[in-house]
């Protein structure tokens, strides 16, 4: 039976072979006939002639056989399909439920596939992307696993490395772009000489930088342009937005940070580095005397032909250790590491995506199981039809094909609808999951559609085979009066259905446990005290430029005026600024060595602290608490003694058990020298990059004493911070129309963004689990309903001879409970085994969290409640009617 089915299904793929076989067979026949005649004494030629006359033309027979194969397939398929379509049309509700179920499964899995495909699998849109690497500095002694590289080392690396075709550095920062009367802050990347060359990127219009332009383009220590005749390359996005894709943009002049830049080219639309939000590229010539201790460049490299990443990394580490002995003061302990660029850009987003893909696969399985259950139940109703057809001489294969044709129609319709669902889901994803890398590249493309087709095909088999298999087992009915309907529980029949229900419940339990863990994890994350109070705080990053504010006191004067004006706004409680502010991605963030003044100086044992320059009421504005001493209060003038405030963790580490306030701290602030700062206060620790990361050791310097061009301004209001944005924008414009803020955000939103991934994973997993649970409950319900219908006669007889209704209720509902319990046990055991995959995503939750047990056990309870309905229906069966019908 199965053999015939397989043979038939594979026939189209074996057409050539079958044709050759037919040719052989016919030739063999003719050969034997001729041989017979020759044996009988005929001349071979005459024998062949006669054979031909008697047997007919083998070629035309071969044609006929070929046509028979083709015609059979087509004819049978059309017959099956039209019969299937007729049957499905008659059962609208059944068809609709099945198609919707499959559509949900196909839609969800296609959307996720498109996402995974774009984010993880599709190579970067650059030539030979596999050879591209990210370069990082590492320092094991300081447990720095990955940080930026230095411009000083970059020059030496470039000269000494043979296994890398090139290494380039780039640095991304916000700058003010002025066109006409309008100013806006845009992200710019300054890139070193090799950058476009090693990425093998050509300009779409114009050209990229020449080596001469790059060498001539210098920046001072604040990364403000100082070279002669500056040039710039535009991103495709900016070109489209500001120039309407006019090729004449090349040659025009832009004002960036108050200096004119000549546009020399425009990059292609899909250029992926450093990110799609970077709008202007500037050349960056690095002088011979570049520093070796400022780790702020991003590094990108391309492997030399034939070199492996491991070999290249070995060589790079050797070069780095050579530099460490040549320049011990800056390079001691520093080494470097290489990471494939694609992997680096995706980060660890792939893990969560694969998990979700697995989850959606499970949902799809539940969907298929449900359709299979429904078809099985319907198959039961049609057992009568099947046995009549068998009795009339239908081949079993035809019955199987019939059922598969129905499944195919359902899944084809489900697939089309599913593709539309995927389309909508992806549009939604692009809006909500913008934190995902490369998410803008996602789309329902031919690959995703192909995937949807494949998934629909698998769904056809999964949902159609059980019922088809059952048909293959049907017996030709000896009497055509429907006796087969009355047969009670046939063993194979029930085990298959029960097995499907148990599997459905088990899969839903796995999803439910996973989702409950993610929900708990998210709750834990939200419960973490970030160390500041984001409610009512508005953040506006300001990037002053060197040309107007460099040198002297200009930036201090600007920011003091800005704070005064902001605090004068109605509704503002306080305002302050910091070079880097928790959860805000913008602003300089660096760490320097610190140690107690007068203490023993062991170079390798020095602590490091992240350095922030802050204005007086910054702590108050962010809602941070002074745990000792005082905040800056305006006494820290440019001429006063240098003052510092420590984070609690750092104070405890440097002065364990004693008061840090009043002590003196040495800070090796490379560009400004090393000298002691007086500790005036200690402030509580903050979780700077989000709740998952442990608090860092931080020191705060007074902005008045150490002016800085970049400050993230924070404004606390008594109401909703978002309403304050227009007023803040106006203050900035009044103060200097060419210095708008780089995006104004509520601190709550910024903090929320650090949870965004956890939140999205939780929501998607919860949605999947919900769908799976609903489907499996439908499965339990449907299975029991049919169980009751199938045994209608038996139930009627039982009731006629006095069976208790309560007993009957328990009998049916108990069955639902039993099956769900078995499913929960299996699902629980499987999730214990699969849970490790989730462990890395969880925060503060262990895999054996009690909440997941509660969630898992709630399922059989609901399953029981759901099964009460068919059980109740069983008690409504009228014995008299059943007996009369029998």
């Amino acid at each position, binding site marked *: 039976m199965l053999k*015939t089915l397989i043979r*038939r299904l594979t026939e189209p793929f074996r057409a050539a072979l079958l044709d050759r*076989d*037919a040719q*052989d*067979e*016919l030739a*063999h*026949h*003719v*050969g*034997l*006939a001729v*041989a017979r005649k020759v044996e009988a004494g005929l001349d071979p030629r005459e024998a062949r002639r006669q054979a031909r006359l*008697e*047997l*007919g*033309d*083998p070629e*035309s*027979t071969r044609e*006929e*056989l070929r046509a*028979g*194969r083709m015609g*059979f397939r087509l004819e049978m398929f059309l017959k099956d399909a039209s019969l299937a379509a007729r049957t499905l049309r008659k059962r609208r509700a059944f068809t609709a439920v099945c198609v919707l179920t499959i559509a949900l499964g196909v839609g969800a899995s296609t959307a996720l596939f498109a996402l995974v495909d774009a984010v993880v699998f599709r190579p970067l849109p650059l030539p030979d992307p596999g050879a591209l690497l990210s370069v990082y500095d590492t320092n094991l002694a300081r447990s720095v696993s990955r940080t930026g590289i230095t411009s000083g080392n970059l020059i030496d690396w470039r000269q000494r490395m043979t296994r890398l075709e090139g290494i380039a550095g780039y640095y991304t920062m916000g700058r003010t772009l002025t066109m006409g009367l309008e100013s806006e802050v845009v992200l710019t990347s300054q890139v070193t000489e090799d950058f476009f060359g090693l990425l093998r990127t050509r300009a779409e219009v114009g050209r990229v930088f020449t080596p001469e332009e790059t060498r001539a383009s210098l920046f001072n220590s604040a990364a403000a342009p100082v070279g002669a005749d500056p040039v710039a390359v535009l991103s495709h996005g900016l070109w489209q937005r500001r120039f309407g894709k006019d090729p004449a943009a090349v040659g025009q002049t832009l004002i960036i940070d108050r200096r004119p830049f000549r546009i020399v080219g425009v990059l292609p639309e899909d250029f992926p580095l450093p990110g799609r939000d970077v709008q202007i590229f500037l050349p960056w010539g690095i002088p011979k005397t570049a520093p070796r201790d400022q780790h702020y460049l991003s590094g990108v490299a391309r492997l030399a032909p034939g070199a492996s990443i491991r070999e290249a990394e070995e060589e790079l580490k050797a070069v780095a250790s050579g530099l460490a002995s040549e320049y011990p003061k800056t390079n001691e302990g520093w080494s470097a590491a290489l990471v494939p660029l694609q992997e680096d850009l995706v980060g660890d987003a792939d893990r969560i995506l694969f998990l979700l893909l697995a989850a959606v696969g499970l949902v799809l399985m539940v969907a298929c199981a449900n359709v299979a259950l429904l078809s099985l139940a319907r198959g039961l109703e049609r057992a009568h039809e099947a046995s009549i057809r068998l009795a009339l*001489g239908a*081949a*079993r*294969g035809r019955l199987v094909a019939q059922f598969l044709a129905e499944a195919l129609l359902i899944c084809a319709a489900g697939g089309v609808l599913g593709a539309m669902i995927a389309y909508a889901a992806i549009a939604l994803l692009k809006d909500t999951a913008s934190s995902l890398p490369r998410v803008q590249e996602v789309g329902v493309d031919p690959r995703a559609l192909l995937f949807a087709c494949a998934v629909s095909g698998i769904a056809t088999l999964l949902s159609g085979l059980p019922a088809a298999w059952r048909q293959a087992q049907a017996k030709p009915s000896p009497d055509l009066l429907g006796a087969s309907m009355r047969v009670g529980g046939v063993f194979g029949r029930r085990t298959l259905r029960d097995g499907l229900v148990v599997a459905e419940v088990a899969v839903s339990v796995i999803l439910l446990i996973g989702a409950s863990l993610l929900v708990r994890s998210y709750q834990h994350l939200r419960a973490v005290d970030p160390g500041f109070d984001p409610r009512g705080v508005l953040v506006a990053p300001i990037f002053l430029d060197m040309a107007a504010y460099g040198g002297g006191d200009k930036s201090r004067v600007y920011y003091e005026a800005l704070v005064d004006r902001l605090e004068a706004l109605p509704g503002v409680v306080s305002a302050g600024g910091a070079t880097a502010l928790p959860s805000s991605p913008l602003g300089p963030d660096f760490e320097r060595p610190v140690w107690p003044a007068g203490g023993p100086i062991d170079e390798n044992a020095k602590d490091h602290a992240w350095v922030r320059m802050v204005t007086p009421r910054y702590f108050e504005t962010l809602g941070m608490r002074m745990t000792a001493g005082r905040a800056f209060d305006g006494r820290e003038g440019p001429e006063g003694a240098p003052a510092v405030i420590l984070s609690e963790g750092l104070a405890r580490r440097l002065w364990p058990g004693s008061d840090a306030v009043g002590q003196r701290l040495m800070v090796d602030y490379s560009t400004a020298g090393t000298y002691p700062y007086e500790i005036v206060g200690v402030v509580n620790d903050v979780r700077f990059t989000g709740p998952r990361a442990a608090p860092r050791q931080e020191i705060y310097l007074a902005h008045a004493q150490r002016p800085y061009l970049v400050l993230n301004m924070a404004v606390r209001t008594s109401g909703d911070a978002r309403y304050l944005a227009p007023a803040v924008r106006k203050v900035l414009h009044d103060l200097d129309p060419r210095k708008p803020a780089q995006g104004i955000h509520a601190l709550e939103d910024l903090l929320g963004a650090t949870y965004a991934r956890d939140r999205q994973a939780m929501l998607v997993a919860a949605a999947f689990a919900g769908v799976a649970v609903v489907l499996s409950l439908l499965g339990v319900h449907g299975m029991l309903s049919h169980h009751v219908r199938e045994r209608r006669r038996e139930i009627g007889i039982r009731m006629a001879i006095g069976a208790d209704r309560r007993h009957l209720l328990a009998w049916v509902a108990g069955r639902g409970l039993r099956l769900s319990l078995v499913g929960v046990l299996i699902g629980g055991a499987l999730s214990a085994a699969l849970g490790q995959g989730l462990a890395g995503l969880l925060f503060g939750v262990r895999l054996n969290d009690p909440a997941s047990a509660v969630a898992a056990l709630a399922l059989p309870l609901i399953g029981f409640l759901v099964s009460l309905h068919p059980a109740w229906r069983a008690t409504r069966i009228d014995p008299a009617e059943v007996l009369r019908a029998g």
Partner: protein
Amino acid sequence: MAAEKLDLLILKTLALASLHGFGIGQRIEQMSDGVFKVTLGSLYPALQRLEREGLIDAEWRVSENNRRARYYAITAAGKKRLTAEQKDWLRVSAAVTRVLRTT
């Protein structure tokens, strides 16, 4: 020869022994004392049809002249069909004979 009759004869032939196509043709001619002549164009499409319906099965073996040949065998379903049709045919043909003999 009508297709159903040939099908019946093939099934009958194969019920006695598994044969290749040439053998089937020979047997039918022999058993019918040369009344039925089997051509390629009638035999092979019939075999294809019967195989499809699962009434006969085929496999490749080495034939008496040491060449690859396809041997056909009757299946359980084929035997059942043969019995049914044989009965039917005998009944019908007897009836037809009776009618024709009526003078």
